[in-house]
């Protein structure tokens, strides 16, 4: 089984309260030098069968219609490197 990852992030112009809360906390915890934080979702899908173009197209559609809300979110799909990241 191969792993396909869908990353879903709020569009840049949309307020990200979660990311902001993290960013504001960092200096208090002694972590300086982080200019911006955005928090999103990561979906790891275990795909049965080959991850060919057809499968990726289907996952793309799934991300577009279901995993992400494209009114406010962008997404990217990628096949996870077998060696791990």
């Amino acid at each position, binding site marked *: 089984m191969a792993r396909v990852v869908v990353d879903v992030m709020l569009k840049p112009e*949309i*307020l990200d*309260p979660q990311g902001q809360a993290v960013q504001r906390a960092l200096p208090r915890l002694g972590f300086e030098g982080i200019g911006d934080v955005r928090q999103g979702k990561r979906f790891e899908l275990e795909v049965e069968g080959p991850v060919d173009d057809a499968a990726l197209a289907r996952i793309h559609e799934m991300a577009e219609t279901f995993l992400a*809300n494209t*009114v406010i979110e962008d997404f990217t799909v990628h096949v996870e490197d077998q060696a791990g990241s």
Partner: protein
Amino acid sequence: MTLDTVKHAAETPDTDQPWAELGLKQDEYERVREILGRRPTGAELAMYSVMWSEHCSYKSSKVHLKQFGQKVPENDAMLVGIGENAGVVDVGQGYAVTFKVESHNHPSYVEPYQGAATGVGGIVRDIIAMGARPVAVVDPLRFGAADHPDTKRVLPGVVAGIGGYGNCLGLPNIGGEVVFDACYQGNPLVNAGAIGVMRHEDIHLAKASGAGNKVILYGARTGGDGIGGASILASETFDDAKPSKRPAVQVGDPFQEKLLIECTLEAFAEKLVVGIQDLGAAGLSCATSELASNGSGGMRVELDDVPLRDSTLSPEEILMSESQERMCAVVEPEKVERFLAICEKWDVTATVIGEVTDGDRLEIYWHGEKIVDVDPKTVAHEGPVYERPYARPAWQDALQADDAGKLPRPRTGDELREQVLKLVASPNQASKSWITSQYDHFVQGGTVLAQPEDAGMIRIDETTGLGVAIATDGNGRYAKLDPYHGAQLALAESYRNVAATGAKPLAISDCLNFGSPEDPAVMWQFSEAVRGLADGCLELGTPVTGGNVSLYNQTGEAAIHPTPVVAVLGVIDDVSRRTPIAFADEGHLLYLLGDTKDELGGSAWSQVVHDHLGGLPPQVDLGREKLLAEILISASRDGMVDAAHDLSDGGLIQALVESCLRGGKGARIVVPDELDPFVLLFSESAGRAIVAVPRSEELRFTDMCGARGLPATRIGVVDGDTIDVQGQFTLPLSDLRAAHEATIPSLFA
């Protein structure tokens, strides 16, 4: 690109301007030019266009809403009336209560979670802006058919959004409605209401006075979200075919709003605030022009000082942005430091962006250049007013002639039993606890009554037990059959709900949800509903303190049912006297109060069993409603009843089932001789309630009803673990519970 300054605008009268794209009509644009004596700058055009939108200017509804100010009942409870962020009523002991309902319909269809969440956020800011601490929220909701796939998308998102925002703010959700009807399929109604409490001396108004006073913008930074969003979106028919018309959705940050509440209340407590305004629809355009317009002086604003989330925003965008969780306060110069310190304490960004001036102009500067120079009244209060044509629709007669009386009725006990089970399991009549258990009812430690009680009730003084109650109601089916009486029935039901808990109804707020005002049939429904409501309030003695109009609720040509939602606020001197709906004690006698007539037009029965809508809604007798309320309040005060439940959609049987399930006890019912069992159980005659009377109080209670002329019929007793209608059928509570509670989870869980 050169900055479009006031000077530049005066020099370039012939420049083409995107007034149509911004939603202005040609004559409205001409009017702006006439007011200014020149063409508007880009920034001025932005301000006029959002402030003159239907949502912000009430241009189609104003001529009708006037009646709320004309037909004012004698009522000395009113402290602040229509025209402010929310009305305020006196509830005694030095306390004042503010409450209001608003719509967030279109945004909630586009993005259910965020649309509903920001709806709660917006109404709560209206409440804080009056100087009050918010103490509760309510959420009247309407969705398309329960089994439609899109309802499965919209409802869970809306409910999670209302809960997600309100729970995080720490506001108990104590009431609301969930109604399903295919007419709301492409246009759900998400109304949100809030109540706040303050001392009389703490009432604050949205006005900027005192030259030299500072204007402070505080809360979230301004971003590019929802530019022209709520106002434009709520001012047009929602058309699926044009995704480009969907402006950016706003994302709510309830944590930021919670900080905003605490910080604002602390500033109020230290008397640091001269005037205050929340930023909702039309953002800074609205806040600055309303503050300046309501005050005695003018205002000068340095737009460069507005803290931004996105540094690329143009001045027009900054003025139109509907970023959430922002407020604007007017503060005397010597108090500014302390105000900013309180904001810092709560981690709230706050910036002085301008000051009140001697003149009567609103002037806005950008990079040192003047880009707005207007009379704020012309922006905020002197927008266009339309006398839209209205006409009783041609189909109204046929609809009313299609009498529900001709529908086949159950003839045997078994048929009755079957239809009872079907009714209590139907989506509109089923238990909504799957939804309401996603809302915090307990936070703040003041909740006396919450869903599924007739009204929510909050204790506002721990020592004296003073409390307030609120209920919201609106029956679009009744209003479709007869908008005048439909609006009165919404008022009557909400009033009755409050009285059933033992609280005295004081005043109302409303949210009027209708189709397109450009359709004369819709305009007729609207004008009839407003007239009905105004007449009803006059008769009941409950003034309209404020409200909200939501038009353009339709998909294509098809308008929703006219849906006036009415919120009634009541007061109770001592919450320990409250009356719950639960039948909890065996042996208590059940009395049906009021008259039961053969009235099934628009009823739940006609919908559930026959999928029918036609005929006339139940008759309205507001004198009777008043008498019933007096009896319910006296009975509560003097401890004569242990439970009371008003009768409305679904009739007596629905009320019985709810009260029995709530208390875990059954009931034995005897059908009075003069009544047909079907009519007794399913009719929706108004002005009725069922009460449980301890035997020791029976005489006192019936004497009171007799002396005041309210029909009170003994119809049974609390007993056992079944609902038994003598000679007709017996239904175990466990079967009823299963039927009543399974429907909503099976559709949405």
